[in-house]
Each structure stands twice: as structure tokens, then as C-alpha cells.
């Protein structure tokens, strides 16, 4: 069975236990050793960002979005052509947080049980025993997710949304934080199965890396020439720190008018003539959650329509289906969304 499932040798599966803290621990200035306020959040997230950026050069926006998704308790889909550092970003994020990480290489013959785990017969105890699959981790890196068949992709459905796995009638909860970072090649590439709509809808955001600019590429050549920078990456935050940060994000203030704006935006995608499928209510939820995290990363304790606007494309675009006409005209959902953002009135008091 050519299962590409393995614990990443450097992060290791065994590191789910609290790891030794790195030098400037995340605990300073916080209650119970955990970050509780915006300034803590800024500090911790800043450290994570810096750590990732030692590996992924010249992509501050992608890094920021990845962090946003992490803090918004969401899942991240990184889509781009091969070789632009998708997996690098995923792994860098995974390694900079001190928590359990599993990596699944999706291949066409991967089976659902290869992801969720199997019940195996234990000869000694003469009973079935559940062998947890790679989803039992804090961060699951699913590489080339659209190389697997839709059946296997769908194995992720339950765990992504409900953070639990049900095998043979028994439900096993997943540890928090739980984040799936999947990479995929554009659907036009050969040998890919497009993700089903239900699966896409579960990813909070889809980002693409894009080619680095020449200077960043040059720097990358230098850095990667000597050694794999990932090897030097040390965890800078603990899983419990992340949990605390998530709590901070949950407390972010979202004004009623901003919530309304998010709803307006999502509703507009449902009524748009060029879209066959608009965004779901779950999309609204994800949008507001991500906006909370985005605002927190901006050191703000309230959400602005700007945040919603920034996140509209990454959070909504992969959920929309253009109509046949729009496809013929090469109008992508991203274009439609950008246009909607430019058109939709921002909520303001009184008219």
C-alpha cells in the first residue's frame, strides 16, 4: 500500500507532549503563563510570523493569511502551480508552533481509512483496537490534496468541520487547535481531482503563493543553497499559546454594521448573475471569524469593513461557481468578488 503517510521526521509525531519552551517564552506578561490580551497576541503572532518568514521569503500576505486562518480556527487551502513553496509555507507554519504535526501525501490510491485510522484486530487482547490515523494531530498538512480521489478527500469532511472522527460507530474527538493545511495544484493540471464543493466550503481560506519577486528568489537561492532552512526552524509558540490566542480572537468586537456588511457581501454573491453557486452561510461565519483574527493581527480589538474586504477573495472565492457564460468569458469568481467589494456600500450610520 503506497501510502504517503508518515510523521514528519523533524517535527515528529511524538511531540504532542508539552515541549521545552524556546528562549523568549510566550508566557511573559500573561496570566497563568498564557497570552490573554491583544498585546500578547501581537507579540506571539509576530514571533510566529518572523519564524515563518525566515523560510518563506517575500510573501508577507500569504503568511499573514495563514496566521489569520490559524487564529480563526479554520483550515487553509494553498493552491498554486508546483514549486512555489506551498508545502514550505505549510510546514513552516506547522513547525513554528510547538504541537503535534502530521503530514499526509495524497495520492490517487489513498483510502479514507488511511486518513482517519483503522480498527485493527489485536490478537493478544482479542478485540478490535482503533489505530488513529494522521488526522489525530494539531496541524495536519495534506499535500497535493487533489491528487486523491474524491472519496478519500471526503474522509476529511467530518474532522474538518466537527473536529472529530467517527470510525465503526465510535466517535473520537480531535485535539485543539486543529488545523488542516492542504496544498493543491490548480485543477487544470493533469492528474488532479477537483475538490468537491462540500470539501472546499470547509476550508476557511484559499491562498495562492505566486512567484516570488526576483530579489526574494535570489535570496532564496542563497538560503536554500547552504541548508534547508526548515531544519533550523525552532518552534516559537506552544499549542496552548495558540489556544489562548484563539480565545482572544473570539472576544474581538464586531459591530452590527460590520456583521451586516459581511452578510450583504455574501448575499450579493448569491444573487449575482455571473455566479451559479453563491457562498454558504458557513462562508459568512468563516468570513467574520477570519475578519476577527485579521483585525487582531492588525493589533485592533474591533473589526473594520476593511478586514472583510481584504478577506473577501481568499475566504469566499473558492466556494463560488461561475456560470457557464462567465466561464466562457473567463470571468473568475475572484473578479466578481473584487467588483462586488468595489460596488457594495460600506455600512455607515444613517443612510
Amino acid at each position, binding site marked *: 500500500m503506497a501510502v504517503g503517510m508518515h510523521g514528519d521526521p523533524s517535527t515528529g509525531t511524538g511531540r504532542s507532549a508539552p515541549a521545552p519552551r524556546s528562549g523568549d517564552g510566550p508566557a511573559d506578561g500573561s496570566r497563568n503563563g498564557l497570552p490573554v490580551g491583544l498585546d500578547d497576541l501581537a507579540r506571539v503572532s509576530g514571533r510566529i510570523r518572523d519564524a515563518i518568514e525566515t523560510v518563506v521569503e517575500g510573501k508577507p500576505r500569504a503568511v499573514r493569511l495563514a496566521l489569520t486562518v490559524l487564529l480563526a480556527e479554520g483550515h487553509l487551502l494553498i493552491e498554486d502551480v508546483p514549486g512555489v513553496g506551498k508545502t514550505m509555507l505549510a510546514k513552516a507554519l506547522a513547525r513554528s508552533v510547538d504541537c503535534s504535526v502530521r503530514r499526509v501525501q495524497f495520492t490517487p490510491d489513498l483510502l479514507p481509512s488511511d486518513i482517519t485510522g483503522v480498527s485493527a484486530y489485536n490478537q493478544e487482547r482479542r478485540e478490535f483496537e482503533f489505530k488513529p490515523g494522521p488526522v489525530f494531530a494539531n496541524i495536519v498538512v495534506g499535500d497535493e490534496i487533489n491528487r486523491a480521489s474524491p472519496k478519500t478527500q471526503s474522509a476529511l469532511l467530518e474532522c474538518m468541520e466537527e473536529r472529530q472522527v467517527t470510525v465503526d460507530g465510535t466517535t473520537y474527538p480531535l485535539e485543539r487547535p486543529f488545523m488542516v493545511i492542504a496544498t493543491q495544484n490548480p485543477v487544470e493540471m493533469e492528474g488532479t481531482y477537483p475538490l468537491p464543493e462540500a470539501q472546499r466550503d470547509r476550508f476557511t481560506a484559499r491562498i495562492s503563493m505566486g512567484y516570488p519577486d526576483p530579489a526574494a528568489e535570489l535570496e532564496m537561492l542563497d538560503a536554500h543553497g547552504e541548508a534547508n532552512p526548515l531544519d533550523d526552524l525552532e518552534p516559537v509558540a506552544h499549542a496552548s499559546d495558540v489556544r489562548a490566542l484563539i480565545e482572544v480572537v473570539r472576544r474581538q*468586537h464586531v459591530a*452590527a*454594521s460590520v456583521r451586516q456588511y459581511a452578510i450583504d457581501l455574501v448575499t450579493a454573491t448569491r444573487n449575482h448573475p455571473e455566479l451559479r453557486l453563491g457562498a454558504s452561510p458557513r462562508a459568512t461565519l468563516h468570513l467574520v471569524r477570519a475578519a476577527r483574527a485579521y483585525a487582531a493581527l492588525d493589533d485592533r*480589538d*474591533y473589526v473594520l469593513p476593511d478586514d472583510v474586504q481584504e478577506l473577501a477573495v481568499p475566504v469566499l472565492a473558492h466556494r463560488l461557481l461561475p456560470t457557464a457564460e462567465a466561464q466562457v468569458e473567463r470571468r473568475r469568481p475572484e473578479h466578481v468578488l473584487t467588483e462586488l467589494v*468595489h460596488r*457594495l*456600500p460600506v455600512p455607515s450610520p444613517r*443612510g
Partner: protein
Amino acid sequence: MRIRMTVMAGLATLAGSIGLYPLFMGGQWFWHALGAVVAVAAGAVVARRLRIPAALEPLGPAVALLLYCTLVFTAGRALVGIVPTPSSLAGLRDLISDGASTANRYAAPVPDERGIHLLVTIGVGAVATVVDLLAVRLRRAAPAGLPLLAMYSVPAAIREHGVNWLAFGLGAAGFLALLMADARESVGGWGRMVFSQRWHEESPGDRDAPDISSLATTGRRIGVTAVAVAVLLPMAVPGIHPRGVFGGKGTGPGGDGARTVTTPDPMVSLSRQLTNPDDGVVLTYETDDAEPPDYLRLYALDRFDGDRWTYSVASRAQDKLTDASLPAPPGLTVAPSRTVTTRVKVSKDLRDLQFLPMPYAPTRVRIKGEWRVHSPSLMVYSLRDGAGGKSFTVTSRRALPSPGDLQAGGTYTSDMLSEFTYLPKSVPDKVRRLAVQVTKGSRTPYESAVKLQSWFTQTGGFRYDLTVGTPEHGSDLVDFLTVDKRGYCEQFAAAMAVMARELGVPARVSVGYTAGKAVSPGRWEVRGRDAHAWPELYFDGAGWVRFEPTPSGTEGQGTATEPSYSLAGGGSGSGGSDTSNPQPLPSSSAGPGGRPTGGAHFRNDLPGAGGTAAPAPKKHKSGPGYAPWVAGGTLLVLLLAAAPAVRALTRRRRWSAALEPPPGPETARPGPDDPRGPRPRGAADAAHAAWRELRADAIDHGVPWPSSETPRATVRRLDDLLGLDDPAASALRRIARAEELARYAPVDRTPPPADLLRADVRTMRSAFASSATATARWRARLLPASTVAEARDAARVASERTARVTGRAEHTLARLVTRVRALLPTRSD
């Protein structure tokens, strides 16, 4: 469903035909219209069943209409009462020509007659056929409005009062219902609508039908608004409807339960009689008057509508002649008069004559039947009886004023002036100039009148010509006066009366007969050719006095006579010495011998003339030429000042609302965005005020302000656009941040105080101004665009509120309908 559309088309035609009501006297015609519509609809349905091609389809309704007409009008002569025979067709033809002649003879409203009914049936049937063809067969409901509109325009064109707004509304509603039904059909043809907002709220039973409720609601709103605008707008626009849209209440006939007296149009019957080759005897009379006796008057036309002279008599019950005596003639007080008794016998052939031909001014009339008198003009008429074949005795007072009496009679009360010198504005100025020019040098109304008469009969170069058509428009009158100079008594009388009114002399046009020819001493005979029209002018003390501008004798109206007083320097008022000499004395000898009447209300616009103290001109002409310029200039200045003033006011209101000391915490209202608790009112308001001011300033200076922009985005854009220096940029950032906090932050965050923000806004305003071009700067000061935007916003808010209210009303109505339906017994389908 074709049947539904057929029914709707019929209803629309019927509703449109309601607008015809001013044309008819009774309500009978409506049932015929209904019958015609039903017949046409039935014919159309049958034709469609037989699958006749569209081009031939009108045949079906036409046949049905013919059958219907035969059944209703000539059943007796038809086969089995319905199949047309040559004799029944001939009957129909006769009825049509009857109807046509009635329609020609009478001014609207025409009496209820069978001929008229047949015409109504055919006319409405034709409209119904076209509407049905367009709306049902060709599925073009919108153009079907054209025949409906044509039907509506008939009464609107004929009646000066137009059509009642209610009738118009009904017609419009009918057409809208037709459009709605058509749209429903075509939308229904497409099946279910997927992206409707409310389809899932519909009850399961309605799922099969496509949901068009929101569309329909919008449609209904648009329709109702359109009709309301169509009804209300003309009231606000001057000139479209001078008497107001609800005319008929005040000036029009029919007020206080009175009934309008209808007669054949006097002018029309006049010209017909004059040109009729059959010059029969109309009436004969015996009189004890000296020769020649006075004219016999039928009508006094005292209104000039800009095109023609008309009259209007609103008949009331108390006008009935109970004893023979009539009210005293108006104005006849000091001038000498003679009592004349005339016994008139009207020919039997004179049908439909509801007015009595009598010499002016009648004081007693003895006649059988129910007769009424119109007190102001002393016209005697009947609503039921005709004068044809009747004999009656009339006693009248014939005024015999001397020129001196008339010279002195040029003082008028303001009532008199307002009623009898009124001219609509449409009368061209040319007529007034001409009148002034012709009467140059005269100092009293009497002198003017004499000059006018002699101008018409001698010096003006007019020619009597019966071949000229009846004048229909005001322009015909001007043509007659200035270019053509050919006409018959109607043109002469109308023109002189108008010119007299222009000069401020009360005038009207009388229609009737000349004295005719004496057949034996004291016995006179009046023929059709003696029909005549003449102007009467009012002089205080003498009352209404006849003038004669129509040339007389063989070259003119054969039996016309010029009264002696109208020939200046002529008779001494001894009456009866009038001459039928076609060459009267030259009037040029009439020097300004009359004594000037001080303070006369006689309008003469010649400088230095005695009449310059005239009262306010009746035609609302502005006297001196600069007044309109002054008024216009003031208006322009006001308009120019209005926009900046509004802008300044808005600014002050915004800041004063924001700066007003925040009320106590218990009265502080909760922030609109925040359910968690009250937001300190002042700070947030100040931020909003600052932001709106910034927006207004930007718009004033022509900087766009898209509504999809957040405060931050605005800051970025303005910074790029204006190239702000540091203080301005930070001011801008402070304003935006304050607004952001006020809008989106939790309540415990306080934006900066108002006066700081105000200073920042001022900084930004000068930044806007310095980056704008000079033109834009001035426009921002003089015509701030933001006021327009504000007005638009206000209008939008108002319309949204209206929509909400109407929506609620519709909802209530719908619920009511549902309830009523629930109460009704269920149909057993």
C-alpha cells in the same frame, strides 16, 4: 389563457370608454358601450376558436358587432330579429346619419338618442376590436393603449374642461390591469423563477405557480405612482390646465346641482342657416315699434375662450318663469327707453330651438310651457319644450340712448370689468395693438366703440363673404383682422367684441335674427338668411347696447341696420330713425366732441389719455418692460444663493447637533450599532458630523466619494489624490480614525472631541480648495454639489419610508382579502 386576456381587454376598453361621459347627456350610452364590448369579445373568441389568421381576425368582432346592432336597433326589420336584411341595414344607415346630424348640430354634451347610441356602439366596438386584436391575438398589450388613448382624447379635445380625473384614473387603471394581465401571462410562461427572494416562503400549494409577487408589487407601485403623477402633475404646472384639474366645481357648469343647458352650438347653427339655400320663413311677428324694429336675440355669448365665443347657462329650479315678468334689464337706468310689445309666431319647421327669439330687453313674456330665464343675460329658454310652432307675446324695453348718454356711461364697476372684459392670455398682443391703433384719439369707451364700428364697416377694408368657414381658433380671428378681412357677421361680431374687451369695454356677442322684412305695416317676416350675430357693449345707464360692425345692404347682411347712436354725430337718440342705408354717414366727422370722463375705468393705453388710470389689466400683462427682468434677476440671485445657504445651514446643523452638551447618562441613547450599551452620544456624533462634513467638502470640490469605500480606503485615496502635506494628512487620518471608532469600535472607545475634529475638517477643506482648480473652487462655493446629494439622500429615505408604508398597507390588504375569502363558502370544484 386567452379567455382571461380577452376579458381584460374588454374591461380595459370599457374603463377607457368611461372617459367619454362628458360627450353625452344621459348614462344610457354606457350600456350600449358595454354591449358593444361584450359583442366584440364574443366575436373575437369565436374567431380565435376558428383559427382565423390574425389579419382577418377583426372580421369576427365586426360580424358580432353587426349582429348586435341589428338585434338592438333594428330588430323589427331583421330576419328572426338578428340576421341583417337589406331593410334592417338601411335602418342602421338612417340611424347613423341621424346620429351624425345630431352630433353635428349640438355642442357636447349631446342628448341621448338612438342614433347617438348606435354611433357609440360602433365607435366603442371598433376600439374594442383593435384593443382585442393587439392585446390578445398579437400579444402587444402596450400598443393597445393607443386606441384607448384615442378614445380618451375625444372628450378631452372637445370639452374645454377636460375629463374628470376620476374617469381618467379609471381608464388608466383599466389599461394598467391589461398590462398586468399580459405581463403575468408572459412571466408565467417561463415557469418557476429560481432566484426569487420569497419563493420558499410561499405556501406549498403555490409552489407550482411561479412567484411573481415581488415583481407584481413593484409593478403595482409603479403603476399607481404613474397614474397619480399623471393626475396631479397638471395641477402644479401652470398653463396646461388653466382652470385646475378639478375644474367644473367653480367656474364650470354643474355646480350646486344646476344643470347645464345644451343647445346646438349657436355659431354652428348660425352659419348653417346663413348658407342654407332653403331660405324659409323662420318666424313672423307683429310689433308696435317704430321702423325698423330691434333685432330678435336668441343667445348672449359672454365668454371668449381664446378661440370662440361661448355661453354657459347653469339652470336652477328658481329660474323658472312663474309669472310672466322678467328681472329688470341690467344697467338700463337713466337712458330713455321705449316699451315695445311684440307678438312672435315661430315656424313649426324650426325644431330644437330651446331659446326664445325676443327683442332686447324683454320685461314680460307670455308663453305656454315651462320656460326659464337666465337673469344676467335675460335669455329665456326651456329644458323641455321647443320654441318651434309656438306663439308668444313679449314686452320689452328698447333702450334709446343718446350719444351723450353713452359718452357718460363709460364708468364700470370692477365686477363688470372682471366678468366682461376677461380675455384669455392666448389672445395675441397684435389684437390689442390693432385695437389701440384703430381707436386712436378716442377718450371714452363710446368713442372707441364708434371708431371700431366704422373701421369694420368702412375704413378697415373688410368685405362680407359667406363662403368663409366658421372660425375655429383664435388665429382665425387674427387672420380675419389683419390679413384676410373677409367674413360674415360671426367674424365681425366676434372681432369687435374681442377688440372692445381689449380696450376695457365690457362686450359680448349676441346671436339671433335681424328685424327681417316688413310684409305689411307692423308685421314682419324673418327668414333663415336673417340669422345674425352682433356685438353688444355695455354702458352704464343704458345697459347692453347693440352695435353693428357687419356691412349691411346688398354687399353684406341684407337686413342689418346700424343703430343711430352708433353713428357718431348721427341720430339724436330719437330711435326709429335708424336707416338701412348701406352708406352711412362718414364717421370721420365725429371729432372728439364728447366730454372726457374723469376717472373712467376705460382702458386706453395711449399716453396722456384720460383712461390711463385703468384698473389692473385683465390679461395679466406686465406693464413696464423691466419688471420681468427684475423678477427674473431676483429669482436667479435667490436660486444662486439657495445652494450655498443650504450648504451652510447643513453644516451648522451638523455641528450644533454634535457639539450640544451630551445629555445625562440616563438619557443617552444606545449607539445604533451596539446592543451592549449606550455610547456617549456627543463624541460619536461629532465623529459622524466631521466625517459627513468631509464627505460634503469632497463632493463640493468634485472629488468622488464611492459608497463602497471604508474610511481607511478613503484616507489612502485622498492622500494620493490631493498630495496632502503632513498636517493635513494627519488631520485626515484623525477624522477617519474617529469615524472608524464611532462606527465600529466597542462603546468604551471615545473618539477625539468635537472641536478638534472641527479644526481638522477645516484643515481638510482648505486642502481640498488648494488642490482644486479655480473653477472647481468657485463651484464648490456657489453651487455645492453636496446639497444635491443630500437632497437625493433625503428623497431616497423618504421613498424608502413610503415603500415601507405602502408595503405594510398592501400586506394588510392582502390579509384582509384572505380573511374575507376564508369567510366565503368554499367553492365545490
